């Protein structure tokens, strides 16, 4: 590694500063993300109902990408 840029270092600082006593991992997030997506599409504040999922999605880029893609797909396919 030759370079660590500003964004990477800020990400690092956030990752350390935001660590919680309780966080869920990718498996637990995956387990619940379909419900999270449906709550979101129903306008029912999924972050309030499933706060640990919301926090994981804010933090984990892989899970967030998959969540966003799932949201697009379910929204497009609703009613079909």
């Amino acid at each position, binding site marked *: 590694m*030759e370079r*660590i840029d*500003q964004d990477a*270092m800020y990400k*690092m600082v956030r990752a350390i500063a935001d660590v919680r006593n309780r966080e869920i991992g990718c498996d637990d997030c995956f387990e*619940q993300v*379909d419900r999270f997506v449906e709550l979101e599409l129903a306008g029912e504040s999924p972050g309030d109902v499933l706060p640990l999922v919301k926090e994981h999605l804010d933090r984990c880029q892989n899970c967030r990408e*998959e969540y966003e893609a799932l949201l*697009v797909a379910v929204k497009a396919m609703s009613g*079909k």
Partner: protein
Amino acid sequence: MEERTNQEWLEDLQGPHKDQAIADLREFLIEGLGYALGNHHRENMDVLIEDFVQEALIKILDNLDTFRGDSKLTTWAQKIAVRVAFSELRRKRWEDVSIEQFVPEESGVDFTPAILTDTKPTPEEMTTRDRMVRIILQKVDQELTERQRKAIYAVILGGMPMQEVAEQMGTNRNALYKLIYDARKNLKESLLREGLTPEEMLATFKDG
């Protein structure tokens, strides 16, 4: 496609009408995955999507007994198809990138991160930020296990996907998340002992 309740899906996918139900689900997932991958422009995407859905269907049918009904069955199935597709696409995208290139060879190497040379904050901010970056990197090098250190450099500082780093480290994404979580906790406690609070760390970097 025929409208089905979750119960009807479960019965149809496992009953005498399963061929039709599987064909319906396949068609649904292929269309949905097309939307899900809208931003991914690759050659032969149609063929890839069919392959992803085929692989996903095997997982779906193998795991029907784990479906708890917390969502529509089609949403649950689409989630599995999305996971399969993104996993494969990431694997292809990152297969030639080694995590080693993001990890300094020796702990405690005295290198100057680009952040210290690229940015032009005021001299006073520079001093605080400079000090903080050095302390954090020193902690990463000296207080974490070798695996934690490697994971932090590759995922957080290098920006590689967790999935790919996990595969190269011979583990899985969930276990890697836990490894990094423990490292983040250690670093936070260690930095607190140095008198660096999370609030101070964030404030120093916020406007950078």
